[in-house]
């Protein structure tokens, strides 16, 4: 996926300004940056959830806007932060929606197999018949990921998947992200607030600041004392644990 000159303007202020980058295939890329830097807006624009005010998003040789929405949904999945579904839905019913782009409302034998696998992959099998509103935050988040897995797309975009999760569930979520990439070969793009999750579990980091890309590169390239201090405007120290950079700010 190739993004060029992407722009978004609210009122007079441009929240995303002329952003260009390419998403590395088969890797985990994390978008980081302070609040209001435009990372979620970029994610929403490249997944067609919100309209863009300028630029191109080239996906497999065709602009996102040229794709038929149904076809695109077989290749690219997006999960945003706000997932308050007001209806009574069980886990299994939710995951079944992941097959909607393929079979509409009629579920085939193959769909059933894929749905069961997705539920199993997220270790939700015992609670597959429980209603979503009876689950804990972490379980619910896993159910949504299971739906995205059932959607069986090459690309998966996640907007702050660790938001509102405790350390245990957040870490598990990041491990799942890593496994999705390593075991299933997915290309994953995440928006993350936790710098160290980004450093530990991704291959590339795309750092935003003031609606522009401040740095884009491998984890080691971006996670330096100088870069982080500049982006976040506080003092940083970068240590190394298990061969991965770990940042401390104060």
């Amino acid at each position, binding site marked *: 996926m190739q993004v060029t000159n992407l722009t978004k303007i609210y009122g007079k202020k441009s929240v995303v300004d002329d952003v260009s980058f390419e998403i590395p295939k088969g890797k985990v890329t994390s978008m980081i940056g302070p609040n209001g830097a435009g990372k979620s807006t970029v994610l929403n624009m490249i997944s067609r*959830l919100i309209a863009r005010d300028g630029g191109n998003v080239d996906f497999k040789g065709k602009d996102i806007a040229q794709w038929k929405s*149904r076809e695109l949904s077989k290749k690219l999945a*997006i999960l945003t932060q*706000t997932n308050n*579904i*007001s209806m*009574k839905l069980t886990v299994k019913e*939710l995951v079944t*929606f992941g097959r909607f782009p393929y079979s509409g*409302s009629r579920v085939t034998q193959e769909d059933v197999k894929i749905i069961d696998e997705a539920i199993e992959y997220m270790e939700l099998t015992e609670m597959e018949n429980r209603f979503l509103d009876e689950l804990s935050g972490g379980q619910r988040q896993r159910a949504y990921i299971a739906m995205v897995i059932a959607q069986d797309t090459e690309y998966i975009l996640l907007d702050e998947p660790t938001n509102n999760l405790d350390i245990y569930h957040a870490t598990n979520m990041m491990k799942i992200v890593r496994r999705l990439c390593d075991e299933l070969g997915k290309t994953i793009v995440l928006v993350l607030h936790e710098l160290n999750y980004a450093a530990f579990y991704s291959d590339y980091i795309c750092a935003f600041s003031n609606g522009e890309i401040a740095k884009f590169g491998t984890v080691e390239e971006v996670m330096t004392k100088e870069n982080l201090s500049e982006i976040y405007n506080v003092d940083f120290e970068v240590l190394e644990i298990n061969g991965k950079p770990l940042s401390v700010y104060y």
Partner: protein
Amino acid sequence: MLAVKSNRSKIIILAGIVIIASLFYQFSGIDIAYFSYAMSIRTPKLIVMLITAFCIGSASVIFQSIIQNTIVTPCLLGMNSLYILVHTATVFILGSTSFLVTNKTLSFSIDLVVMGFASMLIYGYLFKKTKGNVLYILLAGTVMSTFFSSVTSTLQRIMDPNEYDTLQNALLASFHKVNSSIIGFSIVLIALILLLLRKELALLNVLTLGKNHAINLGVNYDRSVRRLLLGVTLLIAIATAMVGPISFLGLIIANLSRQLFKTYRHSYLIFGSTLIGMVVLIIGQGLIERVFSFSVNISVFINVGGGIYFLYLLLRNRGNV
């Protein structure tokens, strides 16, 4: 699978109650001497009630799903007052003697077209402006409903007394005086709406997941919602043209249906709320006609009961509205 089975049997039981209630309403307490006369009064009324229940029941469920909230119904947002305003305004502008007004089917069609445009404009703007914040939509909706009825009464005051008579007598319906002259036309219209919206109706389950999920799953969200909203508007217009405004009926039956069926599947929800609506209307109207001998109006009951029910829903949902 168990859930499906029991939901299916719930539908069958409800349908049974509807049939029994209809038969009872149709044939109870008839003096044989006046049999055909009684039939000619009761049959259209019964048909009108069945159609109304379907229109309001399905419109409310669909509307709640698009707006993703179960305490809102189109009538609470003043859609039925808008229809009455549109209707009054056409009589006011065209005059009561114009053939566009005296021909009921024609006048009804004009109302529907104007209503369609007006509500898409008004409610489309409202949804956009409030960014889907349900409480603001509700508040603005209640105010709009006052606005529409104020303009309606103003027009009625200003208009020629003769025209007012025509309006009052022939066209503004209530449960005591149902407007049965448009039954055939309405049935055709409803069938047409369902036919044209069949694709969008199939999408309802996905739309309930919310805008982001729906788009992610490849749904053309804005277009589907617009078309469904238009369908809702027309259904409400049909119901209001037949029996006049009943604000809370949709709220009650849609929520009862959701409570009863506990599912996201709209085939059940819509069918269920339709059947519940039929039961409420037929039994309610039957009691009022036969037991209370017309001393009260069913809409008073529905509005008081519905208001209390609404408060209860607000309180129950106050964590997550």
